[in-house]
């Protein structure tokens, strides 16, 4: 039982908190803000801009296809436009939009003041913006990617795509993915560790469950694509033949890695939208959600099963029947947890009193669209049908039903539902329903008929088609309704703009919802709530500081960290304030990307060094040079500050990062296994690496890493003094091993070994940086008795480096012996 704090004057608390959590006005504030509300909104607005650009490209595509032999676009431009339409929608609209919504809402719904790593949120947004601008600049310059949004090799190899078009995609998208991984770490840690006190994991809002599933999937789903992009970029830049079938590579490796990301991506996009539905629908129906436990189980099922479907995108490449059957069965099975949610939502509508307000209209649009997309998905999961419909307009229609039905309609519902919270203003009546009907009619008019176009045999991605009477009218109908849908989206955007500019001030909680975000003032202030809630407190009590940690009496950004499962208060986290480091770091990373893009490879190491120097600056805020007494968050609830606890937010964040990193490494092992078992051109040519010198150096490297792992266990990182030179020696040993390797351009096996050695060298370098950090922190007093600083982080990283290096060395040894 927690005793409330004594009430205080709400206005005084507001001023005190805003002084600490707010940001300076003007450009300085814009460039340095790390506030989750502002960054969440920036993500959503930027994503909407990219949606509008990608939508315009779609209209150009429809204009071209309205008649056979269309002369509106030439083939080269058409290829760029359909590639950019898909890439912008998937990477620069859908993912950032869901990240933005999660970033904005989660701390408010969970009763926290910010996300776990505010500077990481800002870094993510700047990386997204800069990466997006690089890709858009390529479009303007006429050198945009043109190999389709899934960039299949060998079309995207240097031989068949000699310009920089493919490099823009590989480097630009990877740059943007930094923001996705940053958001995934951020969201996972926030949900697990920054809930309101006593909010158990099994009692948190369903939106948080969905976002937890999403962020976990992003941690595991994005590394395969990052690996694939890096391998293809290295192949294009340095001729290492990972995908070149004449030298032991295989284009199917790209397809496997891409779809290992690509299929879970569909669920990564769908889950947050489903979270929004599960939040909004009960409010619109004046009831509680039906089947909370069943929905959580369905999320759990989707998170796992969605990783067992990727091969259904590759049913026609000549895979053995049994493997086809595995993936066909998994693809059909995934419909079950999706159906569980649909029935829970229908049950919720049935038990409630639905009110057909604007968010509910969009939810009805979701039901009528997504269920049809799901059914055509089950059709495509069946192998014989898939063979018939593969690469036809039927697949284009199916994916739009799933993505617009499963993401865009729920996001529109979410936008109109949470706009009062974003802006503090009520909707302007009139335009919203008109926009909805135009979008719904336009969408089904465009894509329902497209199923038929596909069944009549029209392939995807062709810019002209023969004067075939069966295809002419269906394409014309799709193009006509495509423009109707575009008009609807324009009207929707205008409606939101009018609400921002002219909407009347709205009262608090206009929908009479019961989730915590509506307990905030509207629009939500920089600090969210004046005191952190525990069960049974009203919005007024929280505003008067009767919850935990009222105000900001110590003049710094403090919030509560809880136990991941029970929600019991554990310690107080002191979060960093506004900083220019995120934008500077993103700019330096962007500089490195541009060096690679324009082929200035000799300068790239300087770019990497600059990134290292910039990232090094991030530690300066962390830690404390003196012992701090526990803070009384509420009468009788005294909690330590994060500087003195070993299981702080950074440790949880590193665990997430290591899960993503481990997935990356596992995908690398998959690549080695796949090529050596399946690819033609194996066994590889005789290896010329000297067994004795290479074996000796590898053994020395392993011994160094074992010693470093042991030293990292010395109390208070006292071993860092010895570990640092040892790790630098280890780096030198990796350099020696690199000299012994076979020419990586000779065969895929040699290229994979070189790539693996690069991975080990990078990890040794980062381990050395962590050891150096511990050394510095010991010298300046931030690492001392009772103050753990970076020590747990170094230890975990050191162990991970040892484990992956050991696996790699054993793998190469096995290749040599067998």
């Amino acid at each position: 039982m927690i005793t409330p704090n004594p009430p205080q004057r709400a206005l005084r608390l507001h001023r005190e908190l805003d002084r600490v959590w707010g940001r300076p006005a003007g450009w300085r504030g814009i460039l340095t803000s790390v506030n989750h509300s502002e960054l969440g909104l920036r993500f959503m607005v930027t994503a909407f801009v990219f949606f509008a650009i990608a939508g315009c490209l779609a209209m150009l595509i429809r204009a071209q296809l309205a008649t056979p032999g269309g002369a509106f676009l030439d083939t080269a431009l058409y290829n760029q436009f359909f590639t950019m339409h898909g890439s912008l929608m998937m990477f620069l609209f859908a993912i950032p939009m869901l990240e933005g919504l999660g970033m904005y809402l989660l701390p408010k719904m969970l009763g926290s003041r910010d996300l776990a790593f505010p500077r990481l949120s800002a870094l993510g947004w700047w990386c997204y913006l800069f990466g997006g601008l690089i890709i858009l600049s390529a479009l303007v310059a006429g050198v945009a990617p043109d190999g389709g949004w899934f960039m299949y090799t060998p079309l995207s190899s240097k031989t068949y795509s000699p310009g920089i078009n493919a490099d823009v995609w590989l480097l630009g998208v990877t740059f943007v993915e930094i923001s996705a991984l940053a958001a995934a770490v951020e969201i996972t840690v926030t949900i697990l560790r920054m809930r309101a006190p006593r909010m158990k994991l099994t009692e948190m809002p369903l939106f948080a469950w969905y976002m937890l599933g999403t962020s976990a999937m992003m941690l595991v789903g994005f590394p395969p694509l990052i690996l694939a992009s890096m391998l293809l970029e290295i192949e294009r830049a340095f001729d290492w033949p990972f995908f070149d079938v004449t030298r032991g590579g295989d284009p199917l490796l790209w397809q496997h890695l891409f779809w290992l990301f690509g299929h879970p991506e569909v669920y990564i996009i769908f889950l947050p939208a489903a979270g929004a539905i599960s939040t909004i629908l009960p409010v619109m129906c004046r009831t509680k959600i039906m089947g909370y436990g069943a929905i959580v189980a369905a999320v759990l099922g989707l998170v796992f099963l969605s990783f067992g479907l990727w091969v259904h995108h590759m049913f026609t490449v000549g895979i053995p029947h049994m493997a086809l059957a595995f993936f066909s069965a998994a693809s059909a099975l995934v419909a079950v947890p999706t159906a569980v949610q649909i029935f829970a939502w229908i049950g919720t509508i049935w038990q409630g009193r639905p009110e057909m307000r604007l968010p509910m209209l969009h939810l009805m649009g979701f039901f009528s669209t997504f269920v049809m997309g799901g059914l055509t998905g089950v059709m495509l999961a069946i192998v014989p049908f898939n063979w018939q419909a593969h690469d036809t307009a039927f697949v284009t229609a199916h994916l739009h039903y799933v993505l617009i039905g499963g993401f865009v309609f729920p996001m529109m519902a979410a936008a109109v539902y949470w706009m009062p919270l974003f802006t503090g203003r009520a909707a302007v009546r009139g335009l919203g329903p008109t926009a909805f009907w135009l979008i719904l009619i336009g969408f089904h008019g465009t894509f329902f008929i497209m199923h038929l176009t596909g069944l009549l045999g029209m392939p995807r991605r062709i810019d002209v088609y023969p004067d075939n009477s069966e295809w002419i009218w269906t394409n014309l109908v799709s193009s006509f309704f495509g423009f109707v849908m575009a008009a609807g989206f324009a009207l929707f955007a205008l409606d939101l703009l009018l609400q921002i500019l002219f909407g009347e001030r709205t009262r608090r909680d206009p929908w009479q919802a019961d989730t915590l975000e509506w307990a905030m003032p509207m629009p939500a202030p920089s600090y969210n709530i004046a005191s952190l809630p525990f069960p049974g407190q009203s919005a007024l009590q929280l505003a008067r500081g009767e919850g935990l940690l009222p105000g900001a009496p110590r003049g710094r950004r403090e919030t509560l960290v809880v136990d991941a499962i029970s929600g019991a208060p554990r310690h107080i986290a002191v979060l960093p304030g506004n900083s220019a480091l995120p934008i500077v770091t993103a700019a330096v990373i962007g500089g490195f990307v541009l060096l690679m893009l324009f082929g200035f490879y000799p300068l790239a190491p300087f770019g990497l060094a600059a990134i290292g120097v910039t990232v090094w600056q991030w530690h300066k805020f962390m830690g404390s040079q003196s012992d701090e007494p526990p803070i009384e968050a509420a009468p009788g609830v005294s909690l330590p500050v994060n500087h003195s606890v070993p299981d702080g937010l950074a440790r949880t964040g590193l665990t997430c990062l290591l899960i993503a990193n481990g997935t990356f490494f596992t995908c690398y092992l998959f690549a080695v296994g796949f090529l050596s078992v399946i690819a033609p051109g194996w066994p590889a040519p005789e290896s010329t690496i000297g067994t004795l010198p290479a074996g000796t150096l590898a053994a020395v490297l392993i011994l160094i890493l074992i010693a470093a792992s042991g030293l990292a266990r010395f109390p208070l990182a006292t071993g860092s003094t010895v570990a640092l030179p040892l790790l630098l020696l280890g780096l030198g040993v990796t350099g020696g091993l690199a000299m012994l390797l076979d020419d990586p351009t000779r065969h895929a096996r040699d290229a994979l070994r070189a790539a693996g050695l690069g991975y080990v060298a990078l990890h040794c370098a980062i381990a050395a940086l962590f050891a150096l950090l511990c050394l510095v922190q010991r010298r300046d007093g931030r690492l001392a008795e009772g103050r753990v600083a970076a020590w747990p982080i170094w230890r975990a990283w050191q162990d991970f480096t040892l484990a992956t290096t050991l696996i790699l060395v054993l793998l190469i040894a096995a290749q040599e012996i067998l």
Partner: protein
Amino acid sequence: MSWPLRALLGPTLWAVAFAVIYAAHGIGCARGWPAYQAPVGDLHHFTMILLWLLAVGAASAILWRAPRGNDTSDRIIRAGGWIGLAATILTLFPVLGLTSCGATG
């Protein structure tokens, strides 16, 4: 074992079984296992069926040991067990019947 780990145990077992059997299928086809005789059928089918039965047994054991309580956390653990068992049976049952390495395309 903590609550989330217990809830994740069933689906994790399925993920591991799916990956291992898919890998065994690829390696077996590449190395010509269908040509070797085994106690039941050929070596390829025998290996995969054995792995599958082990996985089904392990998934059943996880479900058997799931808590019987009726609060949300217990029900989610049980649901995780059912997901693991159902997915292991339904996605991998093709090991029983189909030709292992024949392809069309």
